């Protein structure tokens, strides 16, 4: 299985450096419409940096990124989000002081019809829209079994719930592409299998593409249709999971080291 012919997202020759370190080097990457693509590689390979490049947190030093046919160059993160790219963060970034409900509600903001004026007048249009948002938020929270926590402050949730809440929040922006950065980190096995089910479910239901960064190979195999392997910022291999994971370079760079102490696979990695 090869890169899609007319991809939804396309990176061409993307490079970024931090001081002397080239975190991502001349990367080509394509995600097709409604594809489930995995991006894997050892810690420090540059996966999170790729997410940051796509979402406009960092600017590439070279190369370009196109989404749905238009270039993302020079756009702010919020503009990129409004084009239909949503993400989660490796070290969870919820709005800690807000309730679970509000964390999701605020993400509906992109498609809001009413603005300040409506909020001030509080007329029928405003109330109707707020009510419809409320019911949609609740529906999404129920899908992810977070409904009963809706009034709790986000920071008070257990770790696994926080990770799921971040996914709900991302989905609430109605993306066409969802970027998940190690969503299974810190989850127990039953939470992980539920997560796999949920990722497949939302991909079906909302008809979106998913780019998944994940260290847990069971999750990766269970979810992804295609894999891209990154090491030291360079693409090592690409293809269907069975082939890629058996590729000698990949085994050497990534799987081989699971037996060595260079990295503990299940531990939530920092940044």
């Amino acid at each position, binding site marked *: 299985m090869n890169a899609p012919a007319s991809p939804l997202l396309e990176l061409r020759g993307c490079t970024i450096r931090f001081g002397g370190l080239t975190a991502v080097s001349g990367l080509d990457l394509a995600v097709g419409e409604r594809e489930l693509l995995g991006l894997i590689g050892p810690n420090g390979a540059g996966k999170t940096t790729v997410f940051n490049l796509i979402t406009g947190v960092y600017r590439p030093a070279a190369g370009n990124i196109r989404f749905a046919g238009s270039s993302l160059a020079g756009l702010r993160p919020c503009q990129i989000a409004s084009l239909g790219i949503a993400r989660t963060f490796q070290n969870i970034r*919820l709005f800690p002081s807000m309730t679970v409900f509000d964390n999701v509600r*605020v993400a509906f*903001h992109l498609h809001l019809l009413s603005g300040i004026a409506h909020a001030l007048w509080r007329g029928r249009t405003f109330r109707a829209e707020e009510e419809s948002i409320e019911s949609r938020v609740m529906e999404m929270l129920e899908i992810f079994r977070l409904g009963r926590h809706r009034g709790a402050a986000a920071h008070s949730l257990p770790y696994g719930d926080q990770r799921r809440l971040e996914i709900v929040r991302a989905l609430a*922006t109605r993306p066409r592409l969802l970027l998940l950065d190690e969503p299974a980190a810190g989850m127990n096995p039953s939470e992980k299998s539920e997560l796999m089910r949920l990722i497949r479910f939302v991909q079906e239901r909302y008809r979106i593409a998913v780019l998944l960064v994940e260290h847990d190979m069971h999750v990766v195999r269970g979810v992804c249709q295609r894999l891209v392997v990154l090491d030291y910022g360079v693409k090592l291999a690409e293809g269907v999971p069975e082939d890629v994971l058996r590729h000698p370079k990949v085994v050497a760079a990534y799987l081989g080291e699971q037996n060595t102490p260079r990295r503990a696979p299940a531990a939530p990695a920092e940044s």
Partner: protein
Amino acid sequence: MMPGRRFLLLLGAVAAGSVLSLQSHRINPYFLDVAVTVAINVILAVSLNLINGYTGQFSLGHAGFMAIGAYIAASTTMFWAPGLLPAASSPGFIGMAVFPAALLAGGLAAGLAGILVGAPSLRLKGDYLAIVTLGFGEIIRVIFRNLESVGGALGLNGIPACTNLFWTISMAALTIYAVTSMVHSTYGRGFTAVQDDEIAAEAIGINTTRYKITAFVVGAFFAGIAGGLYGHFKLSIDPRGFDFMKSIEIALMVILGGMGNTVGVIIAAILLTLLPELLRPVAEYRMMLYSFLLILLMLTCPQGLFQPRFFRRLLSPFLRGSAAPAEDPPRPA
């Protein structure tokens, strides 16, 4: 279109203000004075709360916005309006028609300055932003000190006495209404999102620049109105009255009230205005006691005086508006 229930509460407050104002000759002038001061401080604190408390932009320049409002409003009633239509110089006409326009002009001018002062918040955070906004406030003050047309360092005297209970209570109610309505909406949760995590906010499509500037502009607008009320209440203003200690005083109300908690901030504004008055009998020690109490308060209740939960329960019968208040759990779908 039917306005929300909150809106009716606002109208109620305005009505109460006008009744009180009509009866104001029966009220002890000292209490009247204190009441007007309290209401002006409530406007200042609630409007700063939008910037500091909800949006998390630590601003110490609020007195500067107040100064702009005070000078522009006073200039409107004293020079511009009588210049434009000479008939407008009768006291009654100034009080009823020119004054609201003057307040609006003061608010708009301050709001415009809010764009300028808010701009650094796009690059700076925390203490740096605090000191830069403080600097802006001081610059505004120095500009007025050098403007001879508004009295320079001597200040502006002979401002008509237009401020009364009706205007102050109505404006305070309007400020509270506007800030809470903005914040308690899907749109308005964006302010708190910006405060909580800017990167995450951008990632869900929130234009953090727009939100920050909006907070500064709206906050400054109401501070400008407070300034207009203040000038037409004190009848003379001078640049020293708007120095950074005034900004700090307002910030204190926000912090003691518990950032982003409007009810708490209102109560803190009232208490901090009344405290020096209550300490009047011990005149000599008054300000020493005041600062001592301040330290003590911070040491004993660092979360702010007023926990939102307590007050929400207390006030819930009155506060239930068209949409559930944002801190409340939403009603079941």
